[in-house]
């Protein structure tokens, strides 16, 4: 779907994107994370054939950037940072323009399909200027999907939306993902990325790391389970520490945080041993570091790298 090798973009003296190598597979949701000015939008613009590359090569849907730009544009859908709708025109007119520019066969049919899918059909004849932010964003997503592109670029799809509208948009992105489309998602919302993405890429000019949120958690923090007990006795703690697979044990009041390699396999033995040592187990959970923790840790790493 996307194969980028050494993608670089320079605006005068400003290096916006530096030597980015990236592969995104078919049907994958790839979240692109990074602070403001990290090069996320520039990368999307390069991959959507809106701006040229200073160096490197890339193929999008099998078309080479810089050589087959028109084919690239035809084969992708893009939701830009701002919805960019024609506010005096109604929803149908807004969608019709783009359907015609993408040379969609059944313009009326596709417009109706997406307006109904996104719950905007009842208000199709109203000027878009009167729509709420959430409705405008939904309309902009519909516009990006009209020509049924296999790859969709979404730049901050839920930014500036109220929680309800953000949820609706997020749910719809989930549906689009379910339909087998590839989604390249630029977002500041780490929770959103965590929920939707198969893999995340963290960028600050250079690509710092790419992996699934789960793998990133494991590689940075390992896996830990949290065991809440009625009381932590010396006997219980010794019994836990004596287990060969336990990597580390921390105690916080009546809670033990235990580092394990394979919690799915090792938890039953762990619980058995605690109970045998007289411990009364109340809850057992996996300690889940948020994507935010991972993000800040990796961004810090990236900044140190850039300083070098």
């Amino acid at each position, binding site marked *: 779907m996307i194969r980028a090798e050494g993608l670089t973009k320079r605006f005068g003296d400003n290096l916006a994107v530096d030597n980015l190598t990236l592969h995104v597979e078919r049907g994958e949701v790839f979240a692109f994370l990074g602070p403001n000015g990290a090069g996320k939008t520039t990368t999307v613009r390069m991959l959507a054939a809106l701006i040229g590359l200073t160096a490197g090569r890339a193929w999008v849907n099998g078309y080479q950037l810089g050589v087959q730009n*028109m084919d690239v*544009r035809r084969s*992708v859908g893009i939701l830009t940072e701002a919805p960019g*709708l*024609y506010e005096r*025109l109604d929803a149908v007119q807004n969608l019709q323009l*783009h359907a*015609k*520019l993408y*040379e969609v066969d059944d313009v009326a049919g596709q417009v109706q399909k997406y307006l109904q899918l996104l719950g905007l059909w009842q208000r199709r004849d109203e000027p878009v200027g009167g729509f709420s932010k959430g409705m405008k964003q939904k309309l902009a997503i519909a516009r990006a999907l009209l020509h049924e592109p296999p790859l969709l670029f979404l730049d901050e799809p839920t930014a500036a939306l109220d929680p309800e509208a953000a949820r609706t948009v997020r749910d719809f992105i989930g549906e689009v993902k379910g339909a087998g489309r590839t989604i390249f998602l630029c977002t500041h919302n780490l929770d959103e990325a965590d929920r939707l993405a198969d893999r995340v890429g963290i960028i600050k000019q250079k690509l710092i790391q790419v992996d699934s949120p789960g793998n990133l958690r494991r590689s940075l923090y390992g896996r830990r389970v949290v065991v809440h007990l009625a009381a932590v006795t010396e006997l219980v703690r010794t019994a836990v520490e004596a287990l060969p697979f336990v990597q580390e044990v921390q105690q916080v009041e009546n809670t033990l945080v235990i580092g394990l390699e394979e919690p799915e396999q090792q938890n039953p033995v762990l619980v058995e041993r605690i109970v045998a040592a007289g411990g009364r187990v109340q809850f057992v959970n996996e300690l889940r570091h948020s994507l935010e923790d991972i993000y800040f840790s990796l961004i810090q790493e990236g900044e140190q790298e850039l300083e070098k």
Partner: protein
Amino acid sequence: MNGAKICAIVEKEVADALKNKMIVISMALLPILLVVMVLGTAYFMLKIDEPMDEDDMSIIPAELQDMDPMHAFLILMNDQYLFYFLLIPMMMPVYIAAYSIVGEKETKSLEPLLATPISVWELLVGKSITATVPSVVLTWLSFVVLVIGGYFVMPEPVFLALIRPVWIVGMALLSPLLALLSVFSGIIISSRMNDPRAAQQVTGIFVVPIIALSLAVLAGKVFLSVSVVIMTAAVTLALDCVVLYFAVRLFQRETILTRWK
């Protein structure tokens, strides 16, 4: 170039412009004012019918010396006013072009548009047609209304002067060329401007040569002939080509997205 895509742009631009009251009012106001002004001047001057003094007579060019002085004066006035008709295709496209290009920057609708498989040429042609055609048609239409009104209001020699070849050729040739000059310069200016109003004001500079020529006619320095009109058209055409060259060079996707502030 894909005609269907150009039509889609034109369709959208027309629908958008018609919903913009400011554009509709600006488009309608100027032609109506001009027609009323020309016919009103003729009507009231003939009604007053005061003898002309020597100062007034001195500005009558040699070509009109044999005529009734009032008729000659009215022809001279009409010639000057008709220049203002050429301001319609200059002023009007600026409103439309400025809003259709700078306005898209303001509403941030240009990026999704540029992300579609439309070429820069298709986009420019679509936008230029939308800005040029209505203003040229309105210019011609207001000229036709003026001629019909003139038939009833003006004496025969003045009316015949109104429909002499110089003005027919002038309206036919100069209106589209001036409209294009206005549109292309609007595109260039919009590449450096944030505000549609600022783009309109700067494009107003192109009106100055037309005003200067009209004043030369009023002062009796130039008497309009077909050759003067053709020469003016040739100069405008050359200017169109130069301005178009720069407009296309400046109107590149990357420039628009990354340098238009």
